[in-house]
């Protein structure tokens, strides 16, 4: 699997892409593949405060509901409404189908996350291959 070089990753399989003081967040291709067909994404509301490591929504597949954990803290400035009617976009393009955009409260938090190489190593160990 190729994980975009300019993203950072969490052990809960979210990705985050920095854009100045803002960042977009989604789930990784590895995550969508494990979940299977995604049927629903529970989105936060614009203005909600995310705090690092806490849940901010969930992704429901035919097999399971998984919580979304915030890779970094910040205020929600946009949510990807497209996912309301087309949650399967995450299956077809996990690294493009962003879920939320936040105004970061501490950009430093992002630096502590996994690099693409480290995340790749992590999922290979987790996946057992």
């Amino acid at each position, binding site marked *: 699997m190729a994980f975009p070089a300019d993203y950072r990753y969490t052990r809960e399989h979210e990705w985050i892409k920095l854009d100045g003081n803002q960042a977009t967040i989604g789930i990784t291709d590895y995550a969508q593949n494990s979940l299977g067909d995604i049927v629903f994404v*529970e989105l936060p509301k614009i203005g909600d405060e995310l705090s690092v490591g806490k849940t901010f929504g969930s992704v*429901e597949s035919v097999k*399971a*509901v998984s*919580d979304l954990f915030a890779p970094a803290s910040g205020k929600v400035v946009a949510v990807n409404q497209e996912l309301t009617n087309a949650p399967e976009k995450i299956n077809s393009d996990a690294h493009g189908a962003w879920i939320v955009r936040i105004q970061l409260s501490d950009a430093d938090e992002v630096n502590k996350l996994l690099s693409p190489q480290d995340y790749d190593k992590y999922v290979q160990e987790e996946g057992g291959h």
Partner: protein
Amino acid sequence: MRYLPKSPADRELMLSEIGVHSIDDFFKAIPGEYRLNRDLKVPRQMAESEIIDYFRERSQENAAGYAVFLGAGAYHHYRPVIIDALVQRGEFLTSYTPYQAEISQGTLQAIFEFQTMICELTAMEIANASMYDGSTGAAEAILMAMRITGRHESVIARTVHPEYREVIHTYLHHRDMPMRFVGYREDSGAINLEELERALSDQTACVLIQSPNFFGSVEDVDAIAAMVHRRGALLVVSISEALSLGIVKPPVEADIVSLEAQSFGVPLGFGGPYDGVLAAKEKYVRQMPGRLVGETKDKNGTRGYVLTLSTREQHIRREKATSNICTNQALVALMSTIYMNVYGREGLRDLAKQNLAKANYAATQFGKKGKVLFPKAKRFNEFVVQSKEDPHAINDRLLEKRIIGGLSLRKFYPELGNAALWCCTEMNTRDQIDLAIEAMQA
């Protein structure tokens, strides 16, 4: 599906597999002082003939042949004989949880039809496969409203069934979920709207009302809904007398409806089983507790039924499930499904009209001799009668005439003095009603 108990050989196998010699050996980890060293106090086994004698004798204790004027959440309606004939079919009676769609199409289709009919009756968009009963359903509806709104306070009418309120209290009081209670109007028994307005805040997750309420008064659901929605809260309507939906306008403005469907073909027993069900607007489906059956197509394009949205449920989502209910009252809901089919749209309406007419006649007759409270109430089949005497004394006298009188309200509403809640259904004849009124005065 067959469910057979463990045979002695099975036990042997299980014990040897885990490496112990006997059951006592297995329980050795429990200190002797905590183990029960005697037989359980249960009656000895009986021969078949003894069992039949025993139950024949116990059946004499049933109040067969009595005229029943008790309602208050448990209603005495006629049960068409086809109900028991059908629910006792082995395919329905023995089947357990219908997880496996490939072997449970009959059960799943029956539940799907139950859900569909409940939606038509309540004017809601979705309904679940049933809850334990109306009281736990009402409590679950409040928890559902809290999940949807992110607020923690509930406002509850005092005219919601007092025992439902006790169950709700049990669900909420250790969870930091405050409850506020709102009183009723003296002229109609309906919720006091000024008091309701004052009880609402930006912390209110939902308002729970019952309609017809515990006094039998039909609430103005539209006006209440408008008030509740202005504050961003949800309206939960509890209905304990399902048959009222045959004639009372359904609570279309409600967000969640909690219905007790016992009136639809479920017999009155020693407190159960009952047949609760939750119905709601479709946008709340992911916060709805309990089981849902959906219609789909199999790989050949043929219509089929499956449990759907199970990902909300405990067996998949563990501690993050919407509720710890992971079951439903399938067989009891089936009774209601058959009942609704037997009567149909017109039948339910006719039956509801009979109830209304009989209750009106009775209330008018009672009104000539005593005081019927809440004169401005719009009623269905229940009403409150205030008397000079304690209702218990009246009921003792009625019992001698083989009449089961109304429910004394002293325990729940001491402010009403000697008041009792009476109910008239299609089962009460005019003679019974006249006899009750006569005996009441003797």
